C-alpha cells in the first residue's frame, strides 16, 4: 500500500508539472498571440504594454518566463491582476475558496441523499410506473443547463412580484458561515438544490444500473437463500457493492466542481467564489487571474483524483497494483 501511495504521489507531481506547463503554453506561447497585449486588456496604451513586458520578463526565453510565472504564483505570490494593479491574484483566489466549498459541499450532501433514495426506490418499484417515472425525471434533470435552471429558480423566488411563499428567500449573494450560519444556509439552499439536480439524476441512474447488475450475482442469491429480508439484501449487500463505483464517481465530480465546475451556478446566484472570480476576469480579459484560477482548478482536480485512487485501492484490493 505504501509503495502504491508513493508511486501515485510521484505521478501526481509529474502531472501537476505538465499541467502548469500546458496552461502556461496555452496562455503565452500560442503563435501569433502577443501576451503583453492580452495581459494589458483591451485597447492598452503603449506604456502599459511596456510595463507588462517588463513585469513578466517577456523579452526573456520561454522556459525562463515559465519559471518566473511559477515563482510569482507559488513562491513570492505577488502576481497582480491587470484590471486592478492592487489586487494580488493568489490571496484573492484563497479568499474565494470557502464560498465555492460551501456551495459544492452542501450540494454534494443533497445529491448523495436523494440519488441513493431515488436509485433504491426505482429498483424496489421495478415493474411498476414508479421506476420509469423516476428515470424520466432523472433524465430531465440531466438535460437541463444548470445556468438556465438557476435563472428559472431566480425568476420564481426573486421576482419583485413573487408569491408570498418565497418571502423568506434572501437577495442573491453570500454570507460567510462564520458570520451567520442561518443566513449562510438561507443564501445557499436554492443554489445547492439547483446545482445538485443534475447530479441527483445522474447518480440515481448509475446506482439503479449497478444495483440491477449485481442482483443476479451469486452472493446476492446466497443472501436471499439464507433468509434475509429483501430490504436487508438490498441495503446490506447490493447497495454496499454498488457504492464502490459511486464513491469513486463522487470523488471525481466533487473535485471537478470545486475546481471550477460550479462556475455557472456561482455566476447565476452571484456567489463570490472562484468561479465568479473567473467569470469577472473573463469579462475584463484579466489573463493572470484566469490563468491562476485554471491552474488552481486543474491542481485541485488532479490532487482529488489521486486521493480517489488511494481510497479506491483501500476499498477494493483487486485494483491495487503490486
Amino acid at each position: 500500500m505504501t509503495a502504491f501511495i508513493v508511486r501515485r504521489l510521484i505521478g501526481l507531481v509529474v502531472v501537476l508539472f505538465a499541467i502548469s506547463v500546458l496552461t502556461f503554453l496555452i496562455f503565452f506561447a500560442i503563435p501569433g498571440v502577443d501576451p503583453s497585449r492580452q495581459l494589458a486588456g483591451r485597447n492598452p496604451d503603449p506604456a502599459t504594454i511596456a510595463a507588462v513586458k517588463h513585469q513578466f520578463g517577456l523579452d526573456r526565453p520561454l522556459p525562463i518566463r515559465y519559471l518566473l510565472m511559477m515563482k510569482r504564483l507559488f513562491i513570492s505570490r505577488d502576481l497582480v491582476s491587470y484590471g486592478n494593479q492592487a489586487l494580488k491574484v493568489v490571496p484573492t483566489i484563497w479568499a474565494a475558496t470557502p464560498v465555492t466549498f460551501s456551495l459544492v459541499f452542501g450540494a454534494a450532501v443533497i445529491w448523495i441523499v436523494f440519488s441513493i433514495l431515488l436509485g433504491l426506490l426505482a429498483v424496489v418499484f421495478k415493474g411498476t410506473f414508479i421506476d420509469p417515472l423516476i428515470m424520466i425525471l432523472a433524465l430531465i434533470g440531466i438535460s437541463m443547463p444548470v445556468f438556465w435552471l438557476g435563472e428559472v429558480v431566480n425568476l420564481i423566488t426573486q421576482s419583485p412580484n413573487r408569491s408570498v411563499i418565497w418571502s423568506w428567500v434572501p437577495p442573491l449573494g453570500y454570507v460567510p458561515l462564520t458570520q451567520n450560519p442561518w443566513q449562510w444556509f438561507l443564501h445557499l439552499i436554492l443554489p445547492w438544490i439547483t446545482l445538485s439536480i443534475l447530479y441527483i439524476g445522474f447518480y440515481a441512474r448509475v446506482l439503479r444500473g449497478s444495483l440491477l447488475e449485481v442482483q443476479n450475482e451469486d452472493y446476492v442469491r446466497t443472501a436471499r437463500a439464507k433468509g434475509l429480508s429483501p430490504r436487508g439484501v438490498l441495503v446490506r449487500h447490493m447497495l454496499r457493492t454498488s457504492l464502490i463505483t459511486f464513491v469513486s464517481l463522487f470523488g471525481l465530480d466533487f473535485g471537478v466542481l470545486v475546481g471550477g465546475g460550479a462556475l455557472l451556478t456561482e455566476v447565476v446566484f452571484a456567489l463570490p467564489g472562484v468561479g465568479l472570480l473567473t467569470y469577472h476576469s473573463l469579462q475584463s480579459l484579466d489573463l493572470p487571474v484566469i490563468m491562476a484560477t485554471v491552474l488552481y482548478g486543474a491542481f485541485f482536480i488532479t490532487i482529488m483524483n489521486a486521493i480517489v485512487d488511494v481510497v479506491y485501492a483501500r476499498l477494493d484490493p483487486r485494483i491495487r497494483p503490486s
Partner: protein
Amino acid sequence: MAEFAFEPESDQVHLAPGETPREIQGKSPWQLAGRRLVRNRIAMASLGLFLLIVVLCLLAPVYAHHIAHTDPFASNISGTTVVNGKRVDIIQQGGGGLGLGETPIGPTWQTNYFVGADNSGRDVMARTLYGGRNSLEIGVSSAVLCCLIALVLGVIAGFFRRTTDAILSRTMDLIWAFPVYLLAISLATVLLTKENGLQWGPIHISSSSLWVTTTIIAIVYVPYVYRPVRGEVLSVREKEYVEASVSQGASNWRLMFAEILPNIITTVIVLLPLMIATTVLTESALSFLGIGVQPPQASWGTIIDDGQALLYTRPAVAIVPGIFIVATVLSLNVLGDGVRDALDPRAKVRVRE
C-alpha cells in the same frame, strides 16, 4: 468480412425483450440493431422530437421573413407592431420593476413578436430559431469531430501499443485533468482575442467563426471517447480474425481500418448521441459566459445571456431558448439510451432479468 467479424463471441444470439428466435433468424447484427431501435417507441419519439427541432431551426429564415416579418439581426428600437388591431411600440416606456425605464414588448402570441422582443427590439422567437441553427451546428459538428479524432487516436494507440500508446494516453490524461469548462475558457480567451484570427498554413479561421468554438469543444471531450475506444481496440486486436488477417499478410493500415475499426465502431455510435447532448450543453454554457458564439451571431446560450437582464420583466427571453435546449438534450439522451440498448451487447444482462 465485416459480417463475419460481427458474429457474437458465444454461439448463442441473445434476444431483446419481446423478440422471438424466429424473428431474428438470418439477420445481420446491424439489421438486428436497426430493427430493435425502430421498435423502441420511446427512442423513435425522441428521434422525432430531435428532427422536429432541427427542421424548425433550419426553417428559421422562412419563419423570420414570411411568418414573423422581422429581421432578427437588426435592432428595431423605434419600431412598432400591431396587437389586437392597435399599433404599439416595440420598446415601451416604463413597465420595469418601478415603472421606470424602457421595456421591450412581451409575448404578443401573434406571428409578429410571438414571444416578445429583446432589449434591442429584435424578435426573440426568430432569434431562437436562428440561434438554434448555430447551437445545433456547433453541437453536432464538434461531437462528430471529437469522435473522429478520438477514433483515429484510439485505434492508433491501441494497435501499436508501447511508446505510441504511452505518449497518446498520457496526453489524453493531461487533457482529462483539466476541468472541461476551464480548459475551454482558457482556449477561448486566447483564441477569441486574436485579432486576425488563426492561420495554419492554407487554413484561415477568423476569430468570430463558429469553428473556433466547435474545435475547442471537440478537443476538450476527446479523452472521454478516446478511453473506451482504446480499451476496445486492445481487446479486439487479440481476436482470431485479426490473427487470420495477419497470416494473410495484411498491412498495419488494413488491420487497423478494415479489421479492427468496423468492430469497435459501435462503441462510438453508442456514444455519439450522448456526445451531441453534452456538446450542445457545453456550447450553450460557453456562449452564456460570452466566450462561445460571438455577436452579431446568436445561439441559445447568448440569448439566455441577453435575457438575464430582462429576467423579471420579460422572462420569455431567457426561458424560451432554455426550453429548446432541454428538449434537444433530453431527446438526444433518450435516443442515446435506445441506441445503446439496440447495439450494446450488455443488453443481454437485461434479458436475464
